[in-house]
């Protein structure tokens, strides 16, 4: 660094009369910000590691699945389970997963969103309310296999008359319980994020509490609520452990099932297909597990994409 004048080398900003400010005084000195640069490097490294891992998973799965998907793509999607690698498919798994997703949506969305609205808008701030909120948060962290055991006891055994035992209904209800805390938490947060000024505006015009919730709070919170709900469906679609416990079948062949049988009879789902294929001798079945994984991933990505589009549309409608 060159000094502006011989007598003020260390304070170039202090320019007295007749002393000109030079560019050096305003130049960036990177050494001043060494910790900042190091920290930025660490952050980039973290992003790189995360990105690399996702890519690695996708690439290995895609490579493993390439053979099966390229030679027997439609058969793999359309065929039922089979002991013949050339004819085995995931049609039953796809159907089971879609039915389960439907049951989860029907049960967990209204219950979860309703609970969130009550907790955020109606419940007064008592010890009981706080206890419930903490419990819901803790439930979101309970391992999924525990929900599987609960489902086995309650839905498969306890309510066998309604669910038909190990069935899509039992699996759907179990997974609905699993994602319920997630939906409650995300919906609560979306509702809490609505500024109180919006509520006051509606109350100030003589709206009742229900009118405020219906016309202002829920529409404004809807993008966040829907995102949480759809992500929870994606989570439910990927769970294998609870399905194993509630008795998803590895193989089953019942020919054509009636409408009720489809809901109450033997079932399987895509994650179960993956687990089943992965346990078979690798020399012949190597590609099948990966191919089924690709189907799950595509389904989950499609759902997430739908969530993003819905969120964008709703947000645009709100004029933000």
């Amino acid at each position: 660094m060159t000094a502006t004048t011989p007598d003020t080398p260390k304070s170039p900003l202090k320019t007295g009369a007749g002393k000109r400010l030079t560019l050096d005084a305003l130049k960036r000195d990177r050494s001043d910000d060494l910790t900042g640069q190091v920290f930025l490097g660490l952050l980039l490294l973290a992003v790189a590691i995360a990105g690399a891992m996702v890519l690695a998973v996708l690439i290995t799965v895609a490579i493993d699945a390439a053979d099966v998907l390229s030679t027997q793509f439609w058969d793999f999607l359309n065929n039922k389970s089979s002991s013949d690698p050339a004819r085995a498919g995931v049609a039953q798994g796809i159907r089971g997963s879609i039915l389960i997703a439907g049951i989860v949506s029907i049960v967990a969305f209204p219950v979860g969103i309703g609970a969130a609205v009550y907790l955020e808008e109606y419940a007064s701030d008592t010890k009981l309310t706080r206890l419930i909120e903490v419990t819901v948060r803790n439930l979101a962290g309970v391992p999924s296999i525990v929900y599987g055991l609960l489902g086995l006891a309650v839905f498969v055994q306890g309510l066998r008359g309604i669910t038909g035992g190990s069935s899509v209904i039992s699996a759907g209800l179990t997974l609905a319980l699993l994602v319920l805390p997630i939906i409650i938490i995300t919906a609560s947060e979306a509702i809490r994020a609505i500024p109180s000024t919006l509520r006051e505006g509606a109350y100030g015009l003589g709206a009742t509490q229900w009118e405020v919730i219906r016309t202002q709070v829920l529409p404004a919170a809807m993008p966040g609520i829907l995102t949480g709900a759809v992500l929870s469906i994606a989570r439910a679609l990927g769970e294998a452990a609870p399905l194993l416990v509630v008795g998803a079948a590895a193989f089953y062949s019942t020919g054509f099932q009636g409408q009720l049988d489809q809901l109450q009879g033997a079932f399987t789902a895509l994650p179960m297909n993956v687990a089943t294929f992965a346990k078979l001798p690798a020399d012949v079945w190597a590609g099948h597990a990966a191919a089924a994984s690709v189907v799950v991933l595509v389904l989950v990505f499609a759902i997430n994409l739908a969530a993003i589009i819905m969120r964008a549309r709703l947000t645009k409608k709100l004029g933000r």
Partner: protein
Amino acid sequence: MPDALPSTVVNTTTPTNANAETPDTVFTVRDLNVYYGDFRAVVDVGLEVYEREITAFIGPSGCGKSTVLRCFNRMNDLIDIARVEGTLLYHDIDLYHEDVDPVAVRRRIGMVFQKPNPFPKSIYDNVAFGPKIAGIGGDLDELVETSLKGAGLWEEVKDRLDKSALGLSGGQQQRLCIARAIAVQPDVLLMDEPCSALDPIATGTIEELMREMKNQYTIVIVTHNMQQAARVSDRTAFFTAEADESTGQRRGKLVEYDDTGLIFSNPADKRTEAYVTGRFG
């Protein structure tokens, strides 16, 4: 508890403004106390608000002026721990009578808030919201137009009524909130620092609007801006925050309430004089 603070100077007998006879009373406040939990935020406020006048509440931060304003349309009901004691009559009806529904109160006593808070909907839907929930029949389009004209916003927005209200400027948003409030045809408009988030030009527009609206509505405005109170109001109530001797907590008190001209030219209380001359607050 014994109150060592000086008592309030209230002149309610001889209004010296343009009106020859005493105008009708809209609000009568006697011994109003507001508590947040155990904390007594507002102490023994008493005043009258008269019909088709602009009454201004001024005073430093924390003096309870907004809290008192929010008693008038029972907005404090929305705060779990808030409790109101004393007498608050609206046209001789006790606003805090157990049979009074705050929703019905707010349909007659509208409010405009400190920060413009339009709903994230179209301009039209913002104005139509109140009439819709109130079940006001008739031509909604016409009502929206009259309300927007009443708030001096019609010319600026008539070609984009279906556009989001969030695309308006701050001053336009605040006038939209005024249009929204008058669309339910209220009796009283409460304004809680309506210009504090606006630039001087938008503020001037709103003040002009308030002077026009005075012909139709009773207006109570809370403001930090003394010049604003002096410019627009007929009567001014000066509040202050004073530490309670026993607890040391700062509580809001009404110091003086009189014609705006007197408050600013010849206040009866030293504290008012200090405030309006800029020596404190």
